[in-house]
């Protein structure tokens, strides 16, 4: 084995998009492979838990972990990786804040199993079977499944995380900047998010045309808005754009597709709760002052979780819905 620093990459409850993002670095990835040994990457190379166990504590320079924690198995592995790694990077929205699968914190294991295995209209499940963590197939073949938790957890709620690489998926620049920082030993203080703290508006192509005063008379969805092609600030039309409450650095990808931001880069530093940050801003610019008119405006927004917490529910202050 060479004396190049060792890197591990692991996925938890994620979609593989983060891996694609690394692959999409194209040539970029080769520089990385030049500089480090990727000793552990289940999607790309030989996968052996034992190898990980065999590492000395802290033998890996860094582990990049994407995906939220949803299964017992995932918890075990990330805890193991934490022991073996000097630095742990939460990679991608899911690991950083739970991500879209974190919306499952509006439900729990029971309700999800109920829907998926019992209720779904196309199911054919007369005995109401539900997957078991331990099951004896045909009474002799012992099979196991990992435990499915009630909630999705961002990585830093399970193990200590040293750095955060946000994004769903992280933009190529965000990734290369992070790798460069590691290789050149130019990492900021621990706990940092490796992306600018200024919110998306700072670099938004529509910033200059945004009026000083915006008042919301009703909330609308992009598909309902007849002037969608005018390239104006979405909030001007009452379309929720999470840009003001979302860390920049993504390259305004959604805005460039003429769609509002949904917040995949998470909250800026100092903002504890991305959704509440945006909620307060939105509420503050609602136009009517009369006690009976304000609720009418808010009624035009039938779901707050989707727009405000699409990526950040598990890292929000309340963390999950209370299931009675």
């Amino acid at each position, binding site marked *: 084995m060479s004396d190049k620093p060792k890197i591990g990459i692991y996925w938890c409850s994620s979609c593989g998009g983060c891996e694609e993002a690394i692959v999409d670095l194209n040539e970029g990835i080769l520089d990385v492979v030049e500089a480090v040994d990727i000793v552990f990457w289940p999607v790309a190379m030989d996968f052996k838990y034992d190898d990980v166990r065999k590492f000395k504590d802290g033998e890996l320079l860094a582990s990049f972990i994407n995906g939220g924690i949803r299964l017992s198995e995932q918890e075990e592995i990330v805890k193991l990786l934490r022991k073996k790694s000097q630095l742990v990077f939460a990679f991608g929205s899911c690991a950083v804040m739970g991500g879209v699968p974190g919306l499952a914190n509006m439900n729990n294991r029971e309700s999800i199993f109920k829907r998926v295995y019992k209720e779904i209209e196309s199911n054919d499940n007369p005995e109401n079977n539900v997957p078991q963590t331990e099951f004896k197939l045909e009474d002799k073949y012992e099979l196991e499944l990992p435990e499915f938790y009630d909630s999705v957890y961002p990585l830093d709620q399970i193990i200590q995380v040293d750095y955060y690489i946000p994004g769903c998926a992280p933009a190529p620049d965000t990734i290369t900047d992070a790798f460069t920082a590691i290789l050149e030993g130019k990492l900021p203080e621990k706990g940092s998010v490796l992306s600018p*703290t200024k*919110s*998306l508006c700072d670099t938004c192509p529509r910033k200059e045309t945004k009026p000083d005063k915006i008042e919301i008379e009703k909330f609308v969805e992009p598909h309902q808005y007849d002037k969608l092609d005018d390239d104006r600030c979405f909030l001007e039309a009452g379309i929720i754009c999470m840009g003001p409450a979302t860390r920049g650095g993504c390259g305004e990808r959604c805005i460039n597709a003429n769609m509002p931001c949904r917040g995949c880069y998470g909250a*800026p530093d*100092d*903002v504890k709760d991305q959704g509440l940050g945006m909620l*307060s801003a939105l509420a*503050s610019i609602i136009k009517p002052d009369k006690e009976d008119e304000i609720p009418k405006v808010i009624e035009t927004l039938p779901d707050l979780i989707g727009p405000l917490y699409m990526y950040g529910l598990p890292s929000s202050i309340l963390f999950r819905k209370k299931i009675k």
Partner: protein
Amino acid sequence: MKEKERIGFFLCECSQNISGTVDVHKIKDELQKQPDVVTAEVTNLYCSAEGKSEIIESIRKNNLTKVVIGGCSVKQHEHTFMNVLEEAGLNPYFMQLVNIREHVAWVTEDKEKATAKAMALLKAAYNRVQYHKAFEKKEIDANADVLVVGGGLSGCEAALNLAADDRKVYLVETQPSLGGQATKYESSFPDLECCSCMILPKLQEVVENPNIELLNYSDVEEVVGFFGNFEATINKKAKYVIPDKCIGCNECLEPCPVEVPNEYDDFLGKRKAIHFQVTGATPYIPVIDKESCLRFKGEDCTKCRDACMFEAIDYDDEDEKMEVSVGSVVLATGFETFDPTLIPNFKFSNGTEVYTALQFERLISNTGPTSGKLVKRDGSQPKSLAMVHCVGSRDKRYKNYCSNICCSVLLKMSSQILEEKMVEGIQITHVYRDMTIGSTGMEEMYENLKEEGVKFIMVPNPNDIALNSQNGQVQITLPEKTLNADMVVLAAAMVPNKKADKLIEMLMLSKDEEGFVKPTHRKIDAVSTPVEGVYVVGSASYPKDITHSIIDGSAASGKIAFELKPGKKLEIETLISTIDEDKCSGCKTCISICPYKAIGYDSEKGISVINEILCRGCGSCVAACPSHAITARHFEDNTIIAELGGLL
């Protein structure tokens, strides 16, 4: 790593008021166990001289960095103890006063619970002071000069008082003459006192006052800046008459070949192209109206110049821009009258015998088109006269408010007509909804008129009656009956002056739903506006009579006199909000919501900027900022969260 705080607790017994219910000694022992607590002390009265010096000594002896006082309301003693800290050489903001008297001892029966609650509040304060930062008072240079916009009575009043306070006042009036609408009135209610007699001397004072720079026939084109430092651009319209040379001899008027309807008489009478606004205009100098003068239509007429023996006429005169710097602005832009033709059931055209009250006032005024003779347009004398109240007022289809003075004005006119016997045996009929007559003397006038045979017909809403003007007569259809009158006077509502809109916008003032300028508070702060350093007086904020307009003027000048003293610096709010440049992304949310228009956008840096002179530190923007780039001094997020942690 910040240094460990040295915190001192001072628990006031408030002679039994607190210690009667709260076990301060138990709390004292509890507190002493807290890591950063150096001392916890109990005394009978910390607000007493001895109490204060105890704190000061303790601060010095234990060189405390932060102080928590368990006592009474911040309303009562926060400043007391801030001074104590200052005296002890500590920044006054290193203190937290916990109200365990009003908020605990006095409102709780159970001693245990009271003690527990007090403990929680003090723990919260313990957490809180850890985050307290030092703040210093700040002062800025301020310009004490004042810009008064509007030369009506309220504006003139303000100008005169302020000038007396030895400061420069710029008084801008868009018309050639001062005095505003009041100058159109022959006499005033309740006593029919001659208006010009009481107004003109005042206006003359304005003209002569060396501290007042009168900019009549001028418009404010731009105002920028903030309290203490406004910059205004004023356009002085060309008068074509040189004020210093003209003595107001009138010789130039007669020769002028042009005659146009006189807007100052609401187009009843006529005037020349070179003219005075009103007889007795102040200043008494004519102007040439470019629109109608032949010279400006390309003809080579010099009649007025030829007639002037003082070479006061200057056809080459031009508009002139002028820059002034002032510290505050007084908005005295007055009102207009509602256009009654907007009411569909009022069918009449100009030139018929239906008049607005203001037109009618001119008609019966000695300086008016008929020099005070009450005659119809055909010169004949009216036998009957109907006066309709509340036209366009108190009706949500038009203007929802009461214009305050109309009833009084109509009564005044009636008695003026009768008193001066303008027409023998004229029948006056009032069509009204109800009499809104406040000031003393009006009631008496009302009674007298009834005795003198003036009819008063009450209708549910005068805006619902029908007017039909045909062959020199006006038919008035009331709910029960119909009556005919030779003349009809409509008390049209007083509405906001549209010409002031641009200025109101420039000053970032807000309007109420009727379009009048919104003061800071209708009752307790009626001449201030949310924009610090800008004041609103007279009918610009709602319809007022002469009395209240004058009062406004005095009130505003009084406020300015206190808030901006010549040569004094301006002390600005210490606990304001501040924006962190490295966090603000310029999303402008805060700009939208600041009630004081204290936040602007720096397009260079692409961020929002708080003007620390205008900010009052309410913290609304702090709570609204989606990236928490704004901090409220002394009420920072982490300070409050820490306090919260202690409470729970």
